[in-house]
């Protein structure tokens, strides 16, 4: 075989980190989620991880963090790719400090973005998903005020896309108040699996997208979608 002057074996390729798609899940694990709801949510997250792990690009690029709120606010999973995280076991307890959860979560996200920038890692617009079956028990606190302000600022500057999802029983008015720029979605029943399937499909598309591509997301509220109209 003729020797090529441009032999890939002799040419060095730079080893750059993969661009990242940060996916931040803020999950209500308050008492009311006990039983079927928390079981279905748990299953949904496992499906989500498995779907991402099965996609060659998404498993290196999508980084998932999970913050739960129920009584207290806990970072149960810091940003990690699907290859390297095990869905945490979720147990329900306590009330619903939603405002505090949002503030802590968005700080976690900002810290991660700062790390990306420091290390020259490119990233896609981060996704934030807040899932709740109730209303905030800290709505009179500074946390709630700060949460609203930070979400508004983030959406206006296009720093992230903040989705709120209500499960049966959720206070949809509070969710609208929290994130007015994006209408809250109500989950059909406990179809967390469908929600997370949609999320992983969407993020797989984003992971492959190149500048100038339009990533078409299927409408969650379409007839076969996971959200009620």
């Amino acid at each position: 075989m003729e020797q090529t002057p441009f032999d890939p074996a002799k040419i060095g390729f730079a080893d750059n980190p993969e661009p990242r798609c940060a996916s931040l899940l803020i999950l209500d694990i308050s008492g009311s989620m006990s039983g079927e709801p928390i079981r279905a949510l748990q299953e949904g997250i496992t499906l989500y991880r498995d779907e991402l792990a099965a996609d060659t690009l998404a498993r290196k690029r999508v980084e998932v963090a999970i913050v739960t709120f129920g009584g207290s606010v806990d970072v149960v999973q810091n940003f990690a790719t699907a290859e390297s995280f095990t869905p945490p076991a979720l147990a329900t307890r306590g009330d619903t400090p939603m405002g505090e959860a949002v503030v802590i979560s968005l700080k976690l996200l900002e810290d991660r973005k700062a790390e990306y920038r420091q290390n020259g890692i490119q990233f896609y617009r981060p996704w934030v998903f807040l899932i709740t079956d109730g209303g905030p028990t800290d709505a009179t606190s500074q946390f709630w005020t700060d949460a609203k302000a930070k979400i508004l600022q983030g959406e206006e500057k296009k720093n992230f896309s903040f989705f709120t999802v209500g499960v049966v029983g959720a206070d949809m008015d509070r969710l609208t108040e929290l994130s007015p720029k994006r209408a809250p979605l109500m989950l059909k029943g406990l179809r967390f699996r469908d929600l997370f399937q949609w999320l992983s499909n969407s993020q797989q598309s984003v992971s492959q997208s190149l500048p100038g591509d339009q990533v078409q997301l299927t409408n969650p509220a379409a007839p076969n979608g996971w959200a009620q109209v």
Partner: protein
Amino acid sequence: MWRCVPASVIGSSHEQNGTPCQDACEYLRLNTGDEELLLVAIADGAGSAKLSHVGSTEATRHLLSVVRQAQPKCKEVTQAQARQWMQEVLTQLASVAEREGTPISQLACTLLLAIVSKDGAVFVQIGDGGWVVQMEDGIRPGTWPQNGEFANITTFITTEAALDTLQFVRLDGKVEGFAGFTDGLQTLALNFGTRQAHVPFFQPMFDAVRASGDETELIAPLQGFLASGSVTSRTDDDKTLVLACWREPEGVPHEVVQ
């Protein structure tokens, strides 16, 4: 004289979905009497813009035509002039858009320009991709990819206020070679953590051009490299790489460097 090896190759993602190659590149040698210049233009059409392959071809062609008419002197080119040339390309794209009955956004592309003499270089660009230069002290970036905030966003020449984002870099000193590329190659050829050119990528490239007898014989092998499994396994985007080396004319006394 300047030896130039240009190559644009379609990426596997476009091959699969039937989109044409949206990258374009062109060069010309310009002898102004004072100096021998190499002009190179490169463009990368926006993925979802239906006619961006037309946009990128028109943009590179028209840009070189406009620059050639200006008969520039490398040391005297100004940022304002470069901006004006880009504006003229935009005007041309607008008229092509009208002819095609389509909004100008369907012709969106990034656009890169190099005007290089053996004593200095001017690099200009809107959007991502970049220029790397080989001077006496080594191989380093000329411009840097401008990606906007997110990995899948860049500025196209048709983007609002794109001309305000113009990168303009002038380097003075002996230029031994330079290379231009679109974003399909940037993660293979640049180190983003350190903001440096990846020397093991460019050194063998420049060496190959320098060592060749007839550099036009390198075009097919360079295309082959860009289409090779080692490259396509790392990026499925369209790829452009233009390599250029200065060679002292025969018969002119020069130092023999071993």
